[in-house]
C-alpha cells in the first residue's frame, strides 16, 4: 500500500495544476472536465456566500469562510493532498453540523439563553421601550390608510402638517410621494379587510424615527393613528430605565435583565454567560433536583432493561429457531422481524392507540372493557414502555444472535460433547461466552441508542403522566433526551435553551463514560480468548 501513500514532501507541487508531470497516472479528459466544473461550482457558491456575509458584516464567519474556501481549493488543485481529497466533503459537514454544534451546546449550557433572554442588550432595550408605550395626552391625530404588500401591513400616514409617510412594524416612517390614500405597489385595505385583521393591525407600532425614545404610531381603529411614547425612559449614562409614572429605577444588575431594587425585572432580558448556574440549578434547585434524579434513574433503568429484555427474548428465539430439523424456519423468521421493518415512529403511535385506556383494543377487547390506565399511571406507563420497546427491539437482537450463533464453529460444540458436556452446560460454558464476545459491542451501542430513544417515549406517552410538583415540565416516563426537548422547546413553561443544553452535556458525559468503559471491558473479554 505504500505506493498510495500521499507522503508529503516527496514531489514539489507543480506551479500550475494545468501543467501535469507524467509521473503518476494521467487524468482522462472527462475527468479533468468534471473536476473543473465541480470546482467552478464550488467556488461560485463559495464566493456568493462570502459576498452575502461581507454585506451582512458577519466578519468572523466571513473570515472562516475565506479560509475554508482557500483550503478546499488547495486540496483539490494540489497533487499532494490525496487523502484529503476524499475526506474533505464528509469532514466539512461533520465539522459544522456535528462537532461545532456539540461545542456550541457546551457554550449555551453556560448562558441564560432562552425565552426572555434570547438577544443582545440593545435589542432588549428597544423591546422594553416598545412594550411600554402609552398614548401621549392631547397629541394630534394622523390620518391613516392601512396598506399591504405581500401580506405585510404598512401604515400610510398624513401628519398634521400634511406630510405623507410610510412605515411599518420595526420600519421607521419614511416620506413618500402620495396623496395619503393609496401608494404605487401597495394595496389599500378596505374597511372589511381592516375588520378581518383587527388584532394584527392594532398590534402594529410604527417607530417615528430610528430612536425608540421618540415614540411610535399606533392605531385603535384603522383610520387614524396617534403618537405613543414609552413610560420607561432609558438613560445611557447610568445604563438604567426610569419609570416616568412611578419613578422606579430599573438598573442592570448583571443578571441579563434590568431590575428594580425590589427585584422586579423588566422583560425581555438579554443573553449573558452565567457560568455553572444551569448545572448548579439542576442539582440544587429543589423543584428540579428531585424530578431530574428520577429522570436519570429511569433513563438508566429504561436503557438497561430494554437491552436486557430484548436480548433475552432475541437470544431465546435465535436458539429455538436454530434447529435444522425444524420446518418453516424461514417463514417464522421473516414474520418475527416485521416489527423491525415497520417504521419506528409509527410503531409507538400505533401502540399508543392500542393501549389507549378508554377506547384501546387491549382494554376494550382483550380485557373485556377493563379500565387499566396503561399510559396514564406512572408505574404502568413505565411497564408499557418497556413492553412496547420489547416488541420494537427483539427482532434486531434475534437477527444478530442468529448470525452470531451460526458463526460458532461446530467442532467446538462437538469437542465439548465428547468431553461430556450436556446441553445446558454447552450453552452456559461455551456458546454464551463466545456470543458475548461478538455481541458485546452491539449491546453497548444498543444501550447508547436506547439511552436516547426519543421517538418511543415521546410518541407513546410524551413523557407523561406529568409531575405537577416539578419546576420543569417533566413526567414519570421522561428520559433525559425528552426532558431536553421539553425544556428547550416546550410550550408549557417557556423555552430555556441554557438549562436544556446543560442537561444535554450531562447526557453526553454519561453516554461517553458508559461507552468507553463498555468498550474497554469488551477488550478484556476478547483478551480472554
Amino acid at each position, binding site marked *: *500500500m505504500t505506493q498510495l501513500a500521499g507522503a508529503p514532501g516527496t514531489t514539489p507541487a507543480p506551479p500550475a495544476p494545468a501543467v501535469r508531470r507524467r509521473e503518476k*497516472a494521467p*487524468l482522462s479528459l472527462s475527468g479533468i472536465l468534471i473536476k473543473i466544473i465541480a470546482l467552478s461550482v464550488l467556488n461560485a457558491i463559495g464566493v456568493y456566500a462570502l459576498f452575502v*456575509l461581507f454585506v451582512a458584516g458577519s466578519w468572523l*464567519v466571513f473570515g472562516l469562510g475565506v479560509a475554508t474556501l482557500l483550503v478546499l481549493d488547495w486540496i483539490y488543485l494540489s497533487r499532494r493532498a490525496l*487523502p484529503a481529497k476524499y*475526506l474533505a466533503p*464528509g*469532514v466539512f*459537514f*461533520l465539522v459544522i*453540523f*456535528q462537532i*461545532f*454544534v*456539540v461545542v*456550541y*451546546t457546551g457554550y449555551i449550557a453556560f448562558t441564560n*439563553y432562552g425565552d426572555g433572554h434570547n438577544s443582545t442588550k440593545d435589542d432588549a432595550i428597544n423591546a422594553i421601550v416598545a412594550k411600554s408605550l402609552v398614548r401621549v395626552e392631547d397629541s394630534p391625530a394622523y390620518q391613516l390608510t392601512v396598506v399591504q404588500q405581500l401580506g405585510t401591513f404598512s401604515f400610510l400616514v398624513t401628519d398634521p402638517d400634511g406630510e405623507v409617510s410610510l412605515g411599518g412594524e420595526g420600519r421607521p416612517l419614511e416620506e413618500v410621494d402620495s396623496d395619503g390614500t393609496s401608494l404605487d405597489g401597495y394595496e389599500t385595505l378596505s374597511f372589511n379587510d381592516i375588520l378581518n385583521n383587527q388584532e394584527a393591525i392594532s398590534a402594529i407600532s410604527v417607530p417615528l424615527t430610528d430612536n425608540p425614545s421618540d415614540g411610535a404610531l399606533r392605531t385603535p381603529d384603522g383610520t387614524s393613528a396617534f403618537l405613543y411614547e414609552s413610560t420607561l425612559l432609558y438613560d445611557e449614562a447610568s445604563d438604567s430605565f426610569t419609570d416616568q409614572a412611578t419613578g422606579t429605577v430599573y438598573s442592570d444588575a448583571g443578571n441579563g435583565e434590568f431590575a428594580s431594587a425590589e427585584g422586579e425585572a423588566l422583560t425581555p432580558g438579554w443573553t449573558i454567560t452565567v457560568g455553572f448556574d444551569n448545572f448548579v440549578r439542576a442539582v440544587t434547585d429543589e423543584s428540579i433536583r428531585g424530578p431530574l434524579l428520577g429522570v436519570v434513574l429511569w433513563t438508566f433503568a429504561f436503557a438497561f432493561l430494554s437491552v436486557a429484555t430484548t436480548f433475552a427474548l432475541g437470544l431465546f*428465539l435465535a*436458539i*429455538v*429457531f436454530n*434447529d435444522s*430439523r425444524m420446518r418453516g424456519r424461514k417463514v417464522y423468521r421473516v*414474520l*418475527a*422481524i*416485521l*416489527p423491525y*421493518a415497520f417504521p419506528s*415512529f409509527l410503531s409507538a403511535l400505533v401502540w*399508543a*392507540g392500542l393501549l*389507549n385506556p*378508554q*377506547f*384501546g383494543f387491549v382494554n376494550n377487547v382483550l380485557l373485556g372493557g377493563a379500565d387499566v390506565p396503561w399510559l396514564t399511571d406512572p408505574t404502568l406507563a413505565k411497564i408499557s414502555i418497556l413492553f412496547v420497546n420489547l416488541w420494537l427491539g427483539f427482532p434486531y437482537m434475534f*437477527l*444478530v444472535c442468529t*448470525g*452470531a450463533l451460526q*458463526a460458532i464453529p461446530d467442532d467446538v460444540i*462437538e469437542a465439548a460433547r465428547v468431553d461430556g458436556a450436556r*446441553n445446558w452446560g454447552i450453552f452456559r460454558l461455551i456458546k454464551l461466552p463466545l456470543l458475548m464476545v*461478538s455481541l458485546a*459491542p452491539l449491546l453497548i451501542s444498543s444501550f*447508547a441508542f436506547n439511552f*436516547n430513544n*426519543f*421517538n418511543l417515549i415521546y410518541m407513546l406517552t410524551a413523557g407523561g403522566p406529568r409531575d405537577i410538583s416539578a419546576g420543569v415540565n417533566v413526567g414519570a416516563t421522561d428520559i433525559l433526551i425528552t426532558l*431536553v*426537548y421539553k425544556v428547550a*422547546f416546550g410550550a408549557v413553561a417557556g423555552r430555556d*435553551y441554557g438549562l*436544556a*443544553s446543560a442537561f*444535554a452535556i450531562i447526557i*453526553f458525559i454519561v453516554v461517553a463514560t458508559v461507552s468507553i468503559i463498555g468498550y474497554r471491558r469488551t477488550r478484556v473479554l*476478547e483478551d480472554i480468548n
Partner: protein
Amino acid sequence: MSTPTVVRKRKPTLAKWFRATGWRHLVGIAVVIFAAFPLLYVLSSSLNPNGTLVGSNDLFATVDFENYIALFQRPQQPYAAWFLNTLLIGGISALCTVFLGALAAYAFSRMRFTGRRVGLLTLLLVQMFPQLLAVVAIFLLLNGISDIFPAIGLDTQIGLILVYLGGALGVNTYLMYGFFNTVPASIDEAAKIDGAGHARIFFTIILRLVAPILAVVGLLSFIGTTSEFVIASIVLTDPAKQTLAVGLFQFVSDETSKNWSLFAAGAVMAAIPVMALFLFLQKYIVSGLTAGSVK
C-alpha cells in the same frame, strides 16, 4: 438446544416430534402473533370507514378504502406533500450519505497518512454524541443561518438535509471501511499498472465491487432519516414542508381517537415502501448489522 448429530430416522411418535421440534413451532406461533398483531390491527383500522378508535376494535369487520381516498383530500393535513417530502429528504440524504461515507472509507482503507488512526477514533467518539442531543444548538445555528441565507435556514428542507449530512461520517463509514478492506488491494494495483488514476479506480472499480454495502448503508440511512422526528420537528414548521414523522405525529396528537382510521391509513401507506425495501434487502441488512460485530 441444537443437536447437530443426525439422528437416524425411526418411526417418529408424536411425543418425540413434540420434544424435538413441535414445541419450537408453538413458540414460533406465539412470536408471530406477538410480532404481527399490531400491524394487522393497523391494517384493519385503515379499512374501517368508522373513523374512531373504538370503531377499530372489530378486526376486519369492513373492508373499505374510503380512508385512503380521504387522506388526500384534507387541505389542513397535506398527506401527499408529507409523503413526497419524506421520500425526497430521505432519498437525497441517503444518497449523499452513501457518497460521502464511501469517499472517506476509500481514503481510510486504501491510503496511509498522518492522522489516519486519530481520524478513525474520532469518528467512533463523535458517534457517541448523536445529533439529536445537540438539537438546541442546531436550532440556534439554523436560526442564525436564516438571517443571512434564508434558503438554507430554518423551515427549509435543504437546511434539514445539510444537518443530516453532518452525521454522514460515522457508523456508516466504519461499516464501509470494513467492507472496503475485504476487497483485495491487488485489484487497485493492477488498475494502477494499467494506467488508471485514483479517481478512476474509485469510481469505476471499487464502487462496483462494494455495491452491496452501499445498498445497506443507503437503506439504513434512508430508514433512519424517514423516522427522524426531533430535528425535523424543530426545523420544519410549515405543514406543507413537513415529513411524515412530524405530520402524522401532530395528526394523532390533535385528536387521537377521532382520526384513528385516517391515521392508520396514513401509517400503512408510509410503512409499505419501507417494509418492502427492508424485506427485499433483508439478507444484505443482516450481514451489514453483524459486520460490525465480527472482527
